[in-house]
Structures are given as structure tokens and as C-alpha cells.
């Protein structure tokens, strides 16, 4: 099974599976302890300058926006990020906090390319972009989640993606197929927003799960924010709904409307005007700064942020939610 090709992209985070096992043995309690804290406490406790961090799902959909804004508020910098992101990473880049990217897609979807990304990369503020496809980055986290140093895949092959990634191409010893080997991705910190969790971190998600299951299992520290905190008995009644078990979780942040201006399936819709405000503001560095001043630096935390958005508007978003029909 010789190596036919090796990407020249930087291995931003080494796939040290043995180290990850040892971390999980020594740093993650198996006890059911109360992990509730607020955004300010969780970000300052577990996010640090230069850490490798990821968010899930992304800015307009079930994204830990209250945590993402608090990270900006605390100015955690030199971040190395695995980047599938829409609004949340835009905010970090606009605040000048991102140094390196394992990038898959950072854009504004219906509204096109991200000017925050363009400015950060084209100015050289972001020093490194290692390229991956959406499936590849998810499979890299899945490798870590499975506890193996790599996973084979049939994406990336034949393109410049391989060259600018840190993947390898080998011949499968069973079938002789050429396959891409994706190195396990171990995150220092992951932040994920869920529908409900108990105080220990046993969490449930409704609707699509994106890559929450994989990312939660691929991180050394996991902060979850949740729309609702429920008694553990509710979890025990439906153990088959637990997508993130407590032992993966380091902090549980109660954050109603934590995904705003993004949506939360079956709970509230996305806030188009606020999303469009970012799209317009972020066309210039000055506009982006004004948005950050208004929605992040200008408010002490998520409580004040919700006051800024205002209750009637939030109720309207609840009315506009996707319904189970």
C-alpha cells in the first residue's frame, strides 16, 4: 500500500490519536457533574489564544452564535479554525482573530462570497489556508470520533485539492483502488448549539444533525449552548435521542435564541434583516466594524443582545419556525 501522492498543505493539527486517548482518559470525567455556566465563563474557561477551534452547524443554521459573539467580545486571537462557516467565522475574521484555516466553505450562501474572508486572506492576515471538501473535513472529524488515525475516501482525487491539503493517496491493498487517506482531525475546542440538554451535557438535536456528532467526538474540549435545559430524567426516558453524551461535554450554556440571527429547526426562523445587515455592512472593513460595535462590543452579553433584537421580533421568528406537519 505505497503512498502515491502526498499533499503539501500544512498539517495544522497533528492526528495524535494516542495523545487524544490519553486526554480522554485523564481530562474527561465520567461523573454526572453540573456543567452549567454562561457564555462569558465558558469561553474564558476553555478557549485560548492560538487554539484550534471549530463551530457547528454554521451561521444561519443551528449555530452557537451567542458563544461566537462572546469569543469576539473576549478577543481570543491567533485562532486556528476548521472552516465551514457562514456568519460566525465572518465575525471572527472581521475582528482579526483568525490566523490559519482548514477551509471547506466560508461564504454567505444566497448572498455570495464573504468579503471578510477576502480581506483576511488577500491581506495576508490569515497566513494559511489548507483546502478540504465538506465531506472530507467531516470525515476527518469522524476518524477522530472513531478513534483511528485516518479514514479512506473517494473525494479530493485527481484535483488540486489533494495537493493543497495534507491528505495522501494510496492503493487499497484489498481492491487495488486508489483512495484518498484523510488524517484524523483533533480539535482543541468545539462549540455546538443544540435544542436541549441536561445540566451534565446529555444533548438532543432535532432536524438535520450536520456534523455535530462527529465534531463533538473529535474535540478535546466541548462547549455546548442549548435552547433549553431539561431534567436528566427526560434524557433517561429517551436515551435513543442522545446525540451528544455528557462525557464529551465540558460546559453547558443555556442560550435561548442562541442561534440568532440563524434559525433553529422547529423553534424559530432566521432573522433575514439582521443577516442582510451583515451582508451589507461587511462589504467594507469599516461597515463590518460598525456591525461588531452594534451587536457585540456594544452589548455586555447574550441577555443584552436579545434586548437589542427585542422580544416582539423574537416572537415573530418563533411564529416563522419550521413546523412538524
Amino acid at each position: 500500500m505505497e503512498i502515491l501522492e502526498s499533499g503539501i498543505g500544512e498539517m495544522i493539527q497533528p492526528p495524535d490519536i494516542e495523545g487524544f486517548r490519553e486526554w480522554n482518559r485523564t481530562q474527561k470525567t465520567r461523573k454526572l457533574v453540573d456543567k452549567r455556566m454562561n457564555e462569558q465563563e465558558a469561553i474564558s474557561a476553555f478557549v485560548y489564544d492560538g487554539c484550534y477551534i471549530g463551530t457547528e452547524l454554521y451561521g444561519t443554521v443551528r449555530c452557537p452564535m451567542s458563544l461566537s459573539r462572546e469569543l469576539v467580545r473576549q478577543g481570543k486571537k491567533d485562532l486556528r479554525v476548521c472552516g465551514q462557516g457562514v456568519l460566525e467565522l465572518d465575525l471572527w475574521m472581521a475582528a482579526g482573530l483568525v490566523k490559519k484555516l482548514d477551509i471547506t466553505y466560508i461564504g454567505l450562501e444566497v448572498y455570495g462570497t464573504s468579503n471578510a474572508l477576502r480581506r483576511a486572506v488577500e491581506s495576508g492576515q490569515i497566513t494559511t489556508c489548507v483546502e478540504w471538501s465538506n465531506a472530507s473535513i467531516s470525515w476527518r472529524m469522524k476518524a477522530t470520533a472513531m478513534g483511528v488515525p485516518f479514514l479512506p475516501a473517494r473525494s479530493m482525487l485527481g484535483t488540486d485539492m489533494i495537493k493543497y491539503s495534507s491528505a495522501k493517496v494510496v492503493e487499497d491493498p484489498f481492491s487495488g483502488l486508489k483512495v484518498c487517506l484523510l488524517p484524523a482531525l483533533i480539535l482543541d475546542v468545539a462549540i455546538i448549539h443544540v435544542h436541549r440538554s441536561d445540566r451534565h451535557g446529555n444533548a438532543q438535536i432535532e432536524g438535520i444533525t450536520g456534523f455535530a456528532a462527529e465534531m463533538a467526538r473529535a474535540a478535546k474540549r466541548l462547549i455546548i449552548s442549548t435552547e433549553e435545559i431539561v431534567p436528566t430524567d427526560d434524557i433517561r426516558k429517551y436515551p435513543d435521542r442522545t446525540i451528544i453524551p455528557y462525557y464529551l461535554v465540558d460546559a453547558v450554556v443555556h442560550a435561548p435564541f442562541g442561534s440568532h440571527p440563524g434559525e433553529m429547526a422547529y423553534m424559530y426562523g432566521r432573522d433575514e434583516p439582521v443577516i442582510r445587515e451583515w451582508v451589507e455592512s461587511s462589504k467594507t472593513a469599516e461597515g463590518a466594524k460598525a456591525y461588531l460595535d452594534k451587536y457585540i462590543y456594544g452589548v455586555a452579553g447574550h441577555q443584552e443582545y436579545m434586548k437589542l433584537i427585542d422580544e416582539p421580533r423574537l416572537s415573530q421568528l418563533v411564529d416563522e419556525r419550521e413546523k412538524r406537519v
Partner: protein
Amino acid sequence: MTDQNYSKTELMICVAARLFEDGTTAFIGTGIPMLAAMLATKTIAPNLVPVFEFGGLGAILEELPRAVGEARTFHKGLVAAGICELMETAQRGFIDYGFLGGAQIDPYGNLNSITIGEHDHPKARLPGSGGGNDVGSQCWRTVAIMQHDKRRFVPKVDFLTTPGYLSGEGARENAGLPRGTRPINVVSTLALMDYDDGPGGSYRMRLLATHPGVTVQEVIENTGFELIIPKNVPVNDPPSVEELRMLREEIDPDRYYI
């Protein structure tokens, strides 16, 4: 009966919609592909199974999704899972079509959505592959939907992000990509293209039909590489009044795209 008053984008969407095959699975990317898919389900492909990379499959598309993860992508759906589940479903051979966009395309249908200029010091940083590379690698057939001009239709893409025919016949298989997968069409603001991929073919892009009011010469002048031009080049049907009505009143009433 047709309405002479329509935009190039509306025309492109209508031509793309006609490429959907009923009763098949198709990965739908953000933007124009979503409008085309919705129009297809209202016309020739009522049994289309739309697949959105972050987990939605088999949704009933009642409102235009503005994001591939939005709840509208699994509204009354058959599956709401995750990205690995659906990408692995494609890797297993269950996804028939992929509808994609891109910033650049070359004669072999290779797409670029990463950088304009040199990767490490780009003139323009684009969003990245997203699911594009996966869709172009794993789906059986892929269709690219593009604005048509010399900056986008280039001899060589600055960064080969999503595989078309790569360098020609057999190149995909030699690279290890799933056997039998291939690009089949390009829908642009000017025309519909396919590939010279028959026996002994060059595997390069070929003009299949021009849009109404567009000359073959215009297409050639707006293409940055030598396009194969058959003797007879038919003209695509213009959007019907009903297609335009559905587009404007039902699919994109808020005019995100049209």
C-alpha cells in the same frame, strides 16, 4: 405561447430545470440549482428526490431554501440526517445527479471555486470547495450552471476544485474517482453545452444548443477556449409563460435570484 420579457438568469434556470430526470436523486447546491430543482418538481420531475448535503433528503420544496442546511431542505422530508450520511450515500452510488455552480470552468468541465490567481497569494479568495468536490467526485452525473463569459470559461482553471473529465478520457478512473461518474452538461447564460465523450472523443466541451436570441458566434466570443461546434446547433425553447409565472410567483417571490 411565450413571454419575450425574461432575464438571462430566468432563461438559464428554465433550461437547467429541463435537465432534471424524474424519479432520480440529485444533490442541489445553493443558488440557481435550487430554483431549477424547484421548477423541475413543478414541471417534468414531480418525483425528483432532492438531496442537500447537510442532511436533508426527499423534502417537499414549498419555499426556496436560502441555505443548504435550512429547515426548508428537509421540510416534510424523508430523511433529516447529517453530512456524513448523505455524502456516504453518494459515495455508495445512490446519488444520480449533482447540480453545481463555480467561478471558472475549463474545456474538460473542471470547476474552480477556491482562488483566482495563485493559491498562496490569490487575487481573489473564493468561498472554497464546500460540497462541490464531493458532488463532482461521487455523483453519477454532474451539471454545471455558470454565467457565460471569457473570465469564467477558461482554458485552465486557476485551482482545480471539482473534477470534470480532468485531462480527458480515463483520467477520472486513473485518479481513483468512482468508475462511470462524469460531467454531462453545462448550462450558461448563453447556451447549453455537453461533452465530446463518445468513443474516441476528445472529452472537451461541445456546444449543444444556444439560447433564444444568442448566436453561435456570441457563444464562441464569450468562451475563453475552443468550444466544439457541431454542424447543426439548435436553439433552446424560451421560458414558457407558465415557467416564468412559477419562477416569479411561487419559487422566488422575494427575488433573491431573479
